[in-house]
């Protein structure tokens, strides 16, 4: 059997490109999409190619971008519009292959194995795909190709974005020559903390990692260490299966707080609101979860702190009153009393509601009935039609988050 042909298509400065596509007067100008500076969402979410030429980067505060380029044009994020554009692009990709998986709002995998006779070589196919997306949406895309999703991702992130024709191809024989000299942080799966761990062990490049014994990494970091070793060798067993993308592993929410939260009461209030939000979404899908996961990010950028812990619930559930005590327990155990910048809660181990929820006691029954009624009222009259009085307390986020997508205006 021949090698697979996998593409990763990445949209250039996606949010800013959508803004320019919708408003052609913005084309060729430095544009940045950023949230409301008053709510600390004033960070750059996307900067156009022209804005990047001034050194403006994603994640930078808006005021800093303004200082670097006084004539920069700021656009307010419109998340639903970006989702609609992303889905339009999915439909374009489906003209090339029926195996398309969106990986994020601006990245999508395509499996083009066996289609060479129709579309030509990977380079020719990529050129046609890039041309079609540009013609139909006005958005530039870059394509990385490989024999598996990892090679495609590495080809796109490390090379295609810098290539003049927005395309780069890696395969099993060229992978080492191209990627091994790159810094270890460039490897897919290596984040800030892992980079620090590797640096402490003297591992600076992908090649250094690839030359370590696989079982040593497995002993030290378990399955994650083994996956990183495979990634360093360009080996990846994942497939592009469109059906698998609809299997939901968990339901969660994260939020960057409008300011650093220092008081336990305030943080716990937001955690309760988020637990309710997560449970409402879980119930909407007719599911219950067995494990709750809490994520807290510290406020100090220079000394990244925080924690990420999970705990199995006494019984699978989808009511906030039942998951919140576990969330609170994790939070009180692991919070170091340092200011908190962002929090997140997710519920995993999802099963269908009827399958497991058999032994309801009176209290649980009351909680579930109440939650069902609240869901119905909110469904009919809007999310803010009924809420807890505690959401009026200082620090509460429910009203600010209602009606937003990803923490930004829809």
């Amino acid at each position, binding site marked *: 059997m021949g090698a697979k042909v996998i593409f990763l298509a990445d949209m250039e400065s996606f949010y800013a490109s959508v803004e320019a596509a919708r408003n052609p007067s913005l084309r060729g100008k430095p544009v940045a999409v950023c949230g409301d500076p008053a709510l600390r969402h004033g960070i750059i979410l996307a900067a156009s190619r022209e804005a990047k030429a001034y050194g403006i980067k994603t994640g930078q505060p808006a005021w800093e971008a303004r200082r670097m380029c006084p004539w920069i044009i700021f656009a307010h994020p419109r998340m639903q519009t970006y989702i609609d554009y*992303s889905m339009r692009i999915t439909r374009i990709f489906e003209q090339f292959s029926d195996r398309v998986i969106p990986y*994020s709002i601006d990245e999508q995998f395509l499996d083009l194995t066996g289609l060479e006779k129709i579309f030509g070589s990977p380079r020719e196919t990529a050129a046609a795909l890039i041309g079609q997306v540009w013609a139909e949406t006005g958005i530039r895309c870059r394509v990385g190709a490989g024999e598996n999703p*990892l090679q495609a991702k590495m080809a796109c992130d490390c090379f295609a974005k810098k290539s003049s024709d927005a395309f780069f191809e890696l395969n099993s024989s060229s992978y080492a020559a191209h990627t091994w000299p790159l810094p270890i942080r460039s490897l897919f799966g290596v984040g800030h903390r892992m980079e620090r761990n590797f640096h402490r062990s003297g591992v600076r490049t992908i090649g250094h990692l690839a030359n370590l014994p696989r079982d040593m990494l497995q002993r030290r970091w378990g399955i994650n260490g083994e996956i990183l070793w495979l990634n360093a060798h360009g080996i990846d*067993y994942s*497939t592009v299966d469109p059906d698998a993308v*609809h*299997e939901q592993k968990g*339901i969660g929410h994260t939020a960057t707080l409008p300011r650093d939260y220092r008081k336990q009461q305030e943080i716990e209030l937001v955690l309760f609101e988020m637990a309710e939000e997560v449970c409402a979404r879980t119930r909407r899908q007719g599911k219950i979860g067995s494990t709750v996961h809490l994520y807290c990010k510290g406020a100090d950028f220079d000394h990244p702190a925080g924690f990420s812990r999970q705990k199995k619930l006494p019984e699978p559930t989808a009511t906030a009153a039942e998951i919140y005590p576990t969330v609170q327990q994790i939070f009180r155990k692991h919070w170091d009393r340092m200011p908190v910048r962002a929090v997140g809660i997710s519920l995993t181990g999802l099963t269908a509601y009827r399958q497991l929820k058999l032994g309801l006691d009176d209290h649980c029954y009351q909680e579930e009935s109440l939650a069902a009624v609240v869901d119905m009222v909110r469904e009919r009259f809007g999310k803010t039609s009924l809420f807890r009085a505690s959401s009026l307390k200082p620090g509460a986020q429910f009203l600010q988050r209602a009606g937003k997508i990803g923490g930004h205006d829809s």
Partner: protein
Amino acid sequence: MSKKMTQQFLCSKMMLPEHCSGLRKYAEDKKWAENHRRPLLDEQFREELQQILELAMAEQQPLKFTVLDSGGYRAYSGIPLRSDPATGLIYLRSGSSRLQAVKASEVVGIEPF
């Protein structure tokens, strides 16, 4: 092999819930459209259906009609009584003398019952 090893991208994908539900709805709509796509019936096949229908009307034999309408594929059975070219309806008597009308334009198959 560990699931994480075969699904590292599914485990790390960053998708907004609204995007996921939009994609789910899109997949469902696509599946619905696939299941409701009207087959192209060639001339010879349509003539065959016409012959089966005329024969059954003449001999009062019951037939099974496969129909594709907005609700998907459905099956109707009964003895065809007459077809009305003006309304495009085929009248059947099914079961206990109940009269039923089937739209000829929605019929995709006819077979002896």
